[in-house]
């Protein structure tokens, strides 16, 4: 298989304009003859569904939550980047492009990233027109703040709830189309398989989570916007229901999975407190604008933070990276926190935490100002930990937050399955090996509002309007397979709970395929995951029947997929003999413990092809070419 | 449905009617209280009897009486419709509920308070209004003109302890009803402003204490008087 990224010819800055001109258009009168399925209603899904419906297509949108507005984009806190240069501080499309490519440690496609930077400005306009209440200055114009990995203030925000406000904007656009009858919404419905007819994606099979009803839905194209797979680690900042099932089952139907091992570990999360922990809570990275990260200089210093004098504290980020200080990219900040804890200088009872201290900021700007900026985050921290961050420093530790990997897509966001698209976090396209803060919201909305509406037309225009009935054998076969899988799970009646397996898998992934990886550990993890998977199918305990709200059955299906995906992540991590971005192989580091890339051998996208259960996946490479930026060792010193 | 009936059968429209009639009834309370203060004049009831006569015969007042009656009826009818509708919204009750942790008792029990006030009102009307309008008048001369001596009816009624009790309880219910109702009416009318709302709330609290206290002072005054004489 040759991976054709379909990057348009021409100078970087003109590619997207040219491409928009060259793509085929669907005549307005014909648009209503095409049906499009959108799975997932987060930023990428809701924006795509609404925009496509506005254009005239018939859209069916699916989400597992009880309302499309609950997709996990809602939890994004910090902000959204856009190259508006409203602050007159030297920002430009090119600078946003450059920062994103560099931040991603040169493992993303130039053309995609440039397009992302270009459309970023339209996103802000669109959201404001929808009534998104961004933060404003006293003069009534939009406010900006700075974010990790950038030296300009280009982040638009709505207090600490930017994701919520952007998603509600997209949700309102979606609602408008639902009211017009152009979008049919299917909440509490989970996609369990992709249906292909004549080698093209033509529909999906779903299970209704309340009634258990297994149903087919036919369309001319399918868009997956189902988010990341961070829950493979069990503990992550993802929502409890976030899963890989849709993209994994599409992968099993032929969509290649790219860079699965690229996981982002977010530096500012509330530390784990015990084995019962069900999820981790992130606090916006914007906290690092004013908070100072430190640990005691001495190993085993058990004094309360207030008792440790200034000269016995190690502000390690400021010390190591004087020019970016506490605002280094996420992977760098996370790894340094881990290093400090590995050295035995961690804080709190578990010793797996570092301090994030606001004492100086409060002294400098006053309590009110700090409370205005971060009040809701401080409250959240206080609620969860029972400690007052205005009085004592927060304790933070990195946690799995975002997955840069995902289904491989070309410039049009189409996967290797014709007619199957992937947008937002579930594709691999724009962030390379590491995503910069405030860029996930940007990508999700860019894909949904401004990219897919153009590119999907190109595909549809080349395909007939004929509909496929769900009585088609391909649908019947897929339904039967889904039903059989469900029956198989229900018939095991073993002794271990689904969560038990999930936790075991999560621990393996965190220990061996987390913030730092090595060949030996990865090989071990691969064996253990296989064992765990075998045991799961032998010994998992699920009660009840399919035809009801069955929370264990739902989870079991998702965990079964994580157990397969986990192995692929390990394979990918093993294959990539270099360190880059979120992928840190201990064997490949500079003397100063910085990630050591191998540009000669690994400047490619690793796209994996599924070949069967317990069969080795086949690696396909898409070579990355950099014509506009020079590959350098990232330095934030 | 016309826009008019659509508006006034909507949840907000009905509330609007309750609020507007409620505020109108508040204005009645003021007039009624000020008028009845004549009881305290200490002139053996002369002013009060002249005032009563005026109220019973003046054509404007008689017209307003009908408006007032309509106001009461609307207020009660709309509130009843809303209460019934609201009750039906929760067919299965909470097994364990602690509303006292999130709201005032009076706010939650406007229907109950209103019912107590209505019962009081019926007794009150029967005793005074009915007597004044349809009963056998007991004419006495004041400054050369014959007036019905309602003053004596009042004084005698308030010598009965249980009667005084009914009145005082009625006024307590009214106080609680007003405590919520007064500022709530402004809220329903959408009259809400950072500058004025606190004043409205304060005035509402003041109103809900002073007006019922004023009314209650009358039976109490005559009851105590009956012991002193």
């Amino acid at each position, binding site marked *: 298989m040759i991976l054709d990224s379909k990057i348009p010819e021409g100078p970087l800055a003109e590619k997207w304009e040219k491409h928009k001109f060259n793509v085929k258009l669907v005549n307005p009168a014909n648009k209503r003859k095409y049906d499009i399925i959108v799975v997932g209603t987060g930023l990428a899904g809701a924006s795509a569904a609404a925009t496509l419906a506005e254009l005239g297509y018939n859209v069916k949108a699916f989400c597992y939550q009880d309302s499309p507005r609950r997709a996990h984009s809602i939890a994004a806190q910090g902000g959204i980047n856009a190259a508006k240069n409203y602050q007159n501080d030297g920002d430009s499309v090119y600078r946003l492009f450059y920062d994103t490519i560099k931040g991603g440690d040169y493992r993303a496609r130039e053309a995609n990233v440039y397009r992302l930077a270009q459309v970023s400005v*339209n996103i802000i306009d669109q959201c404001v027109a929808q009534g998104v209440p961004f933060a404003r200055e006293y003069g009534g114009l939009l406010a900006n703040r700075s974010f990790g990995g950038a030296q300009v203030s280009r982040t638009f925000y709505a207090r600490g709830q930017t994701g919520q406000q952007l998603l509600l904007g997209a949700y309102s656009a979606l609602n408008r189309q639902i009211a017009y009858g152009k979008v049919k919404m299917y909440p509490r419905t989970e996609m369990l398989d992709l249906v292909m007819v004549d080698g093209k994606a033509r529909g999906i099979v779903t299970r209704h989570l309340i009634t258990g009803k297994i149903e087919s839905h036919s369309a001319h194209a399918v868009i997956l916007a189902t988010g990341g797979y961070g829950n493979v680690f069990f503990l992550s900042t993802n929502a409890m229901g976030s899963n890989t099932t849709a993209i994994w089952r599409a992968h099993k139907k032929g969509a290649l999975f790219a860079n699965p091992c690229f996981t982002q570990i977010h530096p500012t999360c509330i530390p784990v407190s015990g084995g019962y922990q069900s999820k981790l809570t992130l606090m916006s990275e914007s906290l690092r604008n004013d908070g100072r990260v430190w640990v005691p200089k001495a190993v085993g210093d058990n004094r309360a933070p207030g008792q440790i004098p200034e000269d016995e504290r190690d502000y390690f980020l400021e010390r190591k990276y004087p020019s970016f200080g506490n605002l280094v990219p996420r992977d760098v900040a996370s790894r340094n926190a881990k290093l400090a804890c590995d050295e035995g200088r961690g804080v709190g009872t578990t010793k797996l935490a570092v301090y994030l201290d606001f004492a100086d900021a409060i002294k400098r700007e006053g309590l009110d100002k700090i409370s205005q900026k971060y009040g809701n985050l401080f409250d959240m921290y206080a609620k969860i930990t029972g400690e007052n961050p205005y009085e004592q420093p927060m304790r933070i530790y990195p946690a799995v937050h975002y997955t840069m990997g995902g289904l491989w897509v070309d410039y049009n966001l189409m996967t290797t399955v014709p007619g199957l698209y992937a947008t937002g976090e579930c594709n691999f396209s724009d962030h390379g090996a590491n995503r910069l803060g405030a860029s996930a919201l940007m990508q999700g909305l860019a894909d949904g509002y401004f990219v897919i509406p153009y590119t999907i037309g190109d595909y549809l225009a080349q395909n007939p309007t004929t509909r496929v009935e769900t009585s088609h054998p391909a649908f019947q076969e897929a339904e039967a397979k889904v039903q059989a899988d469900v029956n198989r799970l229900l018939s095991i009646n073993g002794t271990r709970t689904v969560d038990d397996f999930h936790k075991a898998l999560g621990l393996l992934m965190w220990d061996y395929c987390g913030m730092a990886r090595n060949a030996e550990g990865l090989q071990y993890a691969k064996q253990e995951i296989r064992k765990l998977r075998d045991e799961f199918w032998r010994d998992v305990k699920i009660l009840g029947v399919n035809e009801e709200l069955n929370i264990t059955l739902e989870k079991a299906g998702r965990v079964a997929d994580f157990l397969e995906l986990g192995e692929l992540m390990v394979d990918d991590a093993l294959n990539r003999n270099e360190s880059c971005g979120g992928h840190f192989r201990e064997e490949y580091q500079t003397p100063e413990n910085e990630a050591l890339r191998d540009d000669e051998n690994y400047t490619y996208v690793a796209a994996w092809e599924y070949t069967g259960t317990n069969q080795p996946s086949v690696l396909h490479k898409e070579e990355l070419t950099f014509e506009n930026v020079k590959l350098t060792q990232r330095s934030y010193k | 449905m016309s826009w008019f009936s659509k508006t006034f059968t909507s949840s907000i429209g009905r509330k609007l009617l309750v609020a507007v009639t409620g505020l109108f009834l508040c204005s009645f309370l003021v007039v009624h209280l000020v008028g009845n203060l004549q009881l305290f004049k200490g002139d053996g009831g002369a002013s009060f009897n002249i005032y009563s006569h005026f109220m019973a015969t003046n054509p404007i007042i008689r017209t307003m009486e009908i408006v007032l009656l309509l106001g009461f009826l609307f207020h009660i009818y709309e509130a009843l419709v809303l209460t019934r509708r609201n009750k039906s919204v929760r067919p299965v009750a909470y097994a364990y*509920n602690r509303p006292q942790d999130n709201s005032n008792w009076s706010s939650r029990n406007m229907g109950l308070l209103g019912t107590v006030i209505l019962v009081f009102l019926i007794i009150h009307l029967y005793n005074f209004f009915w007597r004044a309008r349809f009963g056998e008048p007991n004419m006495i001369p004041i400054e050369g003109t014959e007036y019905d001596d309602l003053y004596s009816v009042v004084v005698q009624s308030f010598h009965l302890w249980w009667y005084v009790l009914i009145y005082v309880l009625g006024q307590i219910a009214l106080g609680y009803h007003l405590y919520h109702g007064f500022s709530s009416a402004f809220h329903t009318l*959408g009259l809400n402003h950072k500058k004025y709302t606190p004043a409205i709330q304060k005035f509402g609290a003041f109103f809900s204490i002073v007006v019922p206290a004023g009314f209650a002072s009358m039976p109490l005054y005559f009851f105590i008087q009956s012991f002193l004489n």
Partner: protein
Amino acid sequence: MAGNNPNSKPMNLTLKVWRQKNFQTAGKLETYQIKDISPEMSFLEMMDVLNEDLLLKGIDPVAFDHDCREGICGMCSLYINGRAHGPERGTTTCQLHMRKFSDGDTITIEPWRAGPFPVLKDLCTDRSALDRIQQAGGYISVNTGGVPDANEIPIPKNIADKAFDAATCIQCGACVAACKNGSAMLFTSAKVSQLALLPQGKVERKTRVENMVAQMDKEGFGACTNIGSCAAECPVGISLENIAMLNREYINASFTSENV
């Protein structure tokens, strides 16, 4: 064992949990004993522990809605000890922690109760009525593209802040659950206020409020009597002022719009 809290003694609790097979059947409270609950746990983590326990005993685990577990998605609900989202103000159930309870406590857990929120199973309810209210007009009719520059219309900071405060509603339905009248006015008013405050939303303000209120009534929610339980129990602090604004918008629209 988290943090530096030395008083993290495990607790034993009695839970009275509403069990209901589905919409058609009646439900009842079941009593479960649960041991060794850490005060550092979140309430839903305690429920997870209960469910693992039930599952291993062969009892159907308790179904409850939840997703983000960080207080923003609005999926979690639960009427805990007579209060929507439990005893702590300004907190969703998922952000409620067991340190708010004491060893030996009995905790009653019920679903949201309102006609428009039918119980689907155990503690899960169907809140799609709220979505339908949003669909009736909770948007500004702009298509993607062709919009003016974001800084074209300045918006005073206090107005933008007010709109933001109203926009933070998480659509959890606690306002309805806590309201004696089962009214969805706080919810509806939050959206109406947000959009009526912003210049972009003023264009459609009259039609919007008329349609959203009509839908709210059609769904069978009760009428607001300004009790204030909703705002007191709202986990994100949506203010009662929004209801006044909704009333104002509605009255104004009813009498001045051209929709006859």
